[in-house]
């Protein structure tokens, strides 16, 4: 049960780079987003809809809880022997004609991918939606290298054309409604009709004709991966639109970027995850397109296949006995959809490409915390610990417990030179709360305010943080324990 008390030991582990940290702390970023009525309307509608659907999809399976347990067990096993599984994966992929590359961080991964694309002579690539490439900022890097990356997932395309950032793991444009999308298409999509309407079908058709041309001309595709089976060297991408299937089969060269935690011991493990993932993410029994490929098949599909295995802070997360469960995540985004905080503030408030409850435990662990002013230091506190995320997680990541652990780590790391107001308050409370009499005296002190019979509407700082939003009831004249003592005295009984 024991674990390292601090994480200050430098084990020479790779540090994460990329879009994993925002510029503002969460409370401030969230307060900004809360004033965006359009965003809140879009989010409330979208998360509300998917929530109901997910519950229905999950209720259809009698063995849902067993599947969750199985998913959790497989991931726990995989993380326990990650080095061995990754080497096995390298061997199986290589044996089937693929080339495996190892990237310590985002910078290294971006360089490897750029070199691979350059070697083909292409200056344009089509992309399958991928969190790993979002994480390392691949598109932005390729742009500086003069290579154009075209997102082919509809929502990802909306984000790209709108010069925007994704705000959700699965539905990156969840913060946009269809009128906003029409406007983005009209202004930024080459060949979009000037009279484009905002009917979903019209929007999809416009994207389709734009993308089809790209699919047919692209020589290189870049994808992520949902899973990789170590025993067979098989990669898997699940998707809904068929754009992934186009990218994975049409171009001559395929480059797949995969976080090292995505490896599964065995091909048969897919049985569990291909049931868990679609029901949790899109509330579907099965996703429309599941693409599986193993190395290179002569005369069929890409004739050159590269697998870039990305660390970018994952080894660092793995070193934490409790926090490593964050690596079990299969990016379904069910926790985002059920989160009451995410529902109101949206993904951008979290700063990182991984928003919501999973982002609140994953981002700060991937990057590490540099000090109290690090925006990611505020993420473990971006939760009421209501537990809805844990209930929804298909691999049973106990997000609330990890959040509390990360808070404990932060306090123990003691990033401050002097104790702050909170430190003093906590110390005083602990002193009082370890002795019944001291506790009684502390309350008596607070009850100096009890002359007031009408409650409080405005109190001085720091209580003002409470009374800015809510009233406080009047304080009772006597505490319950005092009342109880009176009663014992009256009745003469003791206990």
């Amino acid at each position, binding site marked *: *049960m*024991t*674990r390292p008390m601090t994480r200050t030991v430098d084990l020479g582990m790779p540090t994460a780079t990329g879009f994993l940290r925002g510029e503002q702390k969460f*409370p401030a970023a*969230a*307060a900004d987003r*809360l004033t965006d009525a359009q965003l809140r309307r879009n989010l409330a509608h979208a998360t509300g809809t998917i929530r109901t659907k997910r519950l229905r999809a999950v209720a259809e399976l009698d063995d849902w809880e067993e599947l969750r347990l199985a998913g959790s067990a497989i991931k726990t096993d995989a993380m326990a022997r990650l080095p061995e599984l990754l080497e096995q994966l390298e061997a199986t992929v290589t044996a089937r004609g693929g080339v495996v590359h190892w990237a310590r961080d985002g910078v290294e991964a971006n360089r490897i991918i750029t070199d691979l694309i350059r070697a083909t002579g292409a200056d344009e690539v089509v992309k399958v939606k991928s969190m790993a490439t979002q994480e390392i900022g691949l598109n932005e890097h390729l742009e500086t290298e003069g290579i154009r990356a075209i997102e082919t997932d509809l929502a990802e395309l909306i984000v790209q054309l709108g010069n925007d950032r994704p705000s959700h793991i699965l539905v990156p444009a969840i913060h946009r409604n269809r009128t906003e999308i029409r406007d983005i298409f009209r202004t930024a999509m080459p060949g979009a009709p000037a009279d484009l309407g905002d009917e979903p079908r019209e929007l999809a058709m416009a994207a389709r004709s734009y993308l089809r041309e790209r699919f047919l001309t692209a020589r290189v595709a870049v994808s992520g991966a949902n899973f990789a089976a170590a025993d067979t060297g098989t990669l898997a991408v699940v998707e809904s639109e068929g754009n992934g299937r186009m990218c994975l089969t049409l171009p001559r060269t395929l480059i797949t970027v995969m976080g090292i935690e995505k490896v599964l011991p065995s091909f048969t493990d897919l049985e569990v995850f291909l049931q868990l993932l679609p029901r949790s993410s899109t509330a579907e029994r099965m996703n429309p397109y599941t693409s599986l490929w193993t190395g290179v098949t002569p005369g069929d599909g890409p004739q050159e296949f590269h697998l870039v295995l990305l660390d970018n802070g994952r080894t660092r997360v793995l070193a934490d006995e409790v926090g490593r469960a964050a690596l079990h995540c299969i990016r379904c985004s069910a926790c985002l959809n059920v989160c*009451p*905080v995410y529902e*109101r503030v949206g993904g951008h408030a979290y700063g990182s490409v991984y928003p919501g409850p999973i982002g609140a435990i994953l981002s700060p662990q991937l990057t590490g915390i540099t000090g109290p002013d690090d925006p990611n230091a505020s993420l473990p*506190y*971006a939760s*009421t*610990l*209501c*537990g*809805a995320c844990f*209930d929804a997680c298909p691999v049973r990541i106990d997000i609330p417990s990890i959040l*509390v652990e*990360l*808070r*404990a*780590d932060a*306090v*123990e790391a003691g990033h401050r030179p002097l104790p702050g107001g909170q430190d003093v308050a*906590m*110390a005083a*409370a*602990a002193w*009082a*709360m*370890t*002795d*019944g009499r001291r*506790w009684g005296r502390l*309350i008596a002190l607070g009850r100096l305010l009890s002359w007031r*019979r*009408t*409650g*409080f*509407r405005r109190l001085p700082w*720091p209580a003002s*943080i*409470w009374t*800015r*939003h*809510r*009233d*406080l*009831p009047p*304080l*009772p004249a*006597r*505490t*319950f*324990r005092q*009342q*109880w*003592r009176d009663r014992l005295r009256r009745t003469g009984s003791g*206990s």
Partner: protein
Amino acid sequence: MRIAVFTTCLADALYPAVARATVTLLERLGHQAVVPADQTCCGQMHLNTGYWARGLPVVRHHVETFEAALDSCDAVVAPSGSCVGSVRHQHAMVAARYDDDALAERATAVAGRTYELSELLVDVLGVTDVGAWFGHPVTYYPTCHSLRMLRVGDKPVRLLRAVQDIDLIELPGADSCCGFGGTFALKNEATSSAMLTDKVAAVTSTGAQVCSAGDSSCLMHIGGGLSRLRTGIGTLHLAQILASTREHPCPVPEPRRPARRRPSLPGAAR
């Protein structure tokens, strides 16, 4: 049965009527209530804010106090899902983090005999009709920790349905958090306030006169919002409704309007 009452720090200091109702209810059901004098707090505020080293002695104090009480009592009850959640899910874990295996073991033993009020009534004492009367429209908010940490399910609602003359109105979106979250209410005040606004709107939409829950902390937050917006809707803890009878009815709380000046209009003064 002899039952030790863990009043919780909040009820002790701010809501003594909740602890009193818990005792009244147990005694009416023929049990003996014991209130260990040295009790303070479960330490949840420290633990959930990350102050584990500070929280450890608070946890130890709780374990020692109620371990001693359990020498002569059969069970511990608290009118709070959240505090019982901390006792059950956090105390042994914190002790283990500091390698205090003996304390972890003792904490587990105390936790094994500690119940949230509706659990004690339904699971341990085997009653759903506690002989209560409350003749007013009530909506019940199940609270996150009762629902998802303790899994009390519909026990509180079953208890309320058995209350005579109660008009129990379902709360829309009942299972979504009210936005309290302990220090979250202060650290993320804007988000907390946004969540509270939605909860207050849901409560108001029911037309109930009273919003009830099994946790004084959530009720302090929701009640603070209901009062700020002058909804006229008051809050009562589950224990207070269950303790209410025809002979000794619990009055519907009339919000004491916080005012900058004392009201001087006739009839408005209290």
